[in-house]
């Protein structure tokens, strides 16, 4: 009973957090809280086997699967708060509340009486009791679930599998392609410039500056750009740099001459805007 009154507020709060969490990862973690809470409640209610299964299968396997998929899709991709379907949120909350109230009232009105308890059913232990049922009364359903699991596994493989339709490129192919690009389009032959020339930041997400002061787009990973985690090239760093230059000559180029780079935004092209969205 104590466990219930301690756990249930936590679980409800975590479940509500599921509704409001901006990031999917947070939602997954909150769900894990709910599930572990549930498993404890199973234990309280004389269901040690389900307690184990809940932790191993749900929290252990299923939630991990969620997290894997989240990583594949993009950990940081977060929901927009703006509701696109008109009235959906209001209606959902309204109908949901109505549903919840009706359910709660309904359950509250039912007189369940004194629980029988599972002492007798669990006389030989919970697991043998369940096994007894599973392999006698529910044996056909049990066999059917095995077929279901196999089908699901095959189905997931079929869905996730992608057929390769072009031959795999070898290192020789890549080298030849690079030479061809140089010959035809004049693409730079050497390696891409490395980022973070100022060494003041976690350099991988800070673009290098070209001799004229402009940021080198190619010096940061394109994936980081699309994820919007590229740091700007701060203006005062550049100014400090110029101040320390021996000849005192200000660098030419668009650092102060081009407002699109050094005006209000102070941002490198493709870097995230203050509201967290990519400007490109």
């Amino acid at each position, binding site marked *: *009973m104590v466990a*219930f009154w301690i756990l*249930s507020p936590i*679980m*409800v709060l975590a479940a509500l957090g*599921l*509704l409001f*969490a901006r990031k999917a990862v947070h*939602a997954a973690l909150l*769900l894990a809280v*709910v*599930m572990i809470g*549930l498993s404890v*409640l199973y234990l309280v*209610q*004389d269901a040690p*086997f*389900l307690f184990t299964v*809940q932790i191993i*299968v*749900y929290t252990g*396997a*299923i939630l991990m*699967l*969620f997290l894997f998929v989240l990583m594949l*899709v993009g950990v940081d*991709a977060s*929901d*927009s708060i703006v509701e696109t*379907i008109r009235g*959906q949120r209001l209606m*959902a*909350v309204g109908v*949901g509340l109505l*549903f919840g109230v009706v*359910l*709660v009232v309904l*359950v509250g009105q*039912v007189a*369940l009486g004194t*629980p*029988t*308890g*599972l002492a007798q059913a*669990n006389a030989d232990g*919970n697991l043998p009791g*369940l096994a007894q*049922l599973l392999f006698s*009364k*529910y044996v056909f*359903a049990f066999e059917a*679930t095995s077929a*279901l*699991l196999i089908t*699901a*596994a095959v*189905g*997931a493989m079929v*869905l*996730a599998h992608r057929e390769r339709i072009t031959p795999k490129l070898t290192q020789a192919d890549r080298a030849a392609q690079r030479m061809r690009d140089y010959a035809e389009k004049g693409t730079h032959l050497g390696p891409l410039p490395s980022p973070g020339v100022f060494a003041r930041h976690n350099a991988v997400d800070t673009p290098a500056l070209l001799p004229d002061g402009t940021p080198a787009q190619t010096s940061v990973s394109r994936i980081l750009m699309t994820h919007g985690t590229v740091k700007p090239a701060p203006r005062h760093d550049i100014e400090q740099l110029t101040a320390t230059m021996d000849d005192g000559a200000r660098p030419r180029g668009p650092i102060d001459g081009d407002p699109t780079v050094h005006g209000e935004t102070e941002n490198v092209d493709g870097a995230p805007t203050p509201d967290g969205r990519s400007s490109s």
Partner: protein
Amino acid sequence: MSGSPFLVLSAILFTIGCVGVLTRRNAIVVFMCVELMLNASNLALVTFARVNGNLDGQVAAFFVMVVAAAEVVVGLAIIMTIFRTRRSASVDDASLLKY
């Protein structure tokens, strides 16, 4: 102790899951809400098992878990496939089947 508080908790969790399905747009989060609903019903099943003094409710909850596992596998695979082609995990983006 009486079974009613458990059932009320189960109802609350189920409702929260419902609202989550209706309001969240990220397909993965929607899926999590579905899992929440399944778990809430599991709680009710386990409670009923205790109240009635037999293990059938627990067996049913066990089956729910198995089916949920299968469902998650297939569902996430579908989400992956959609994401691969549409570069989006929003359920609202997959809305071509309409008037």
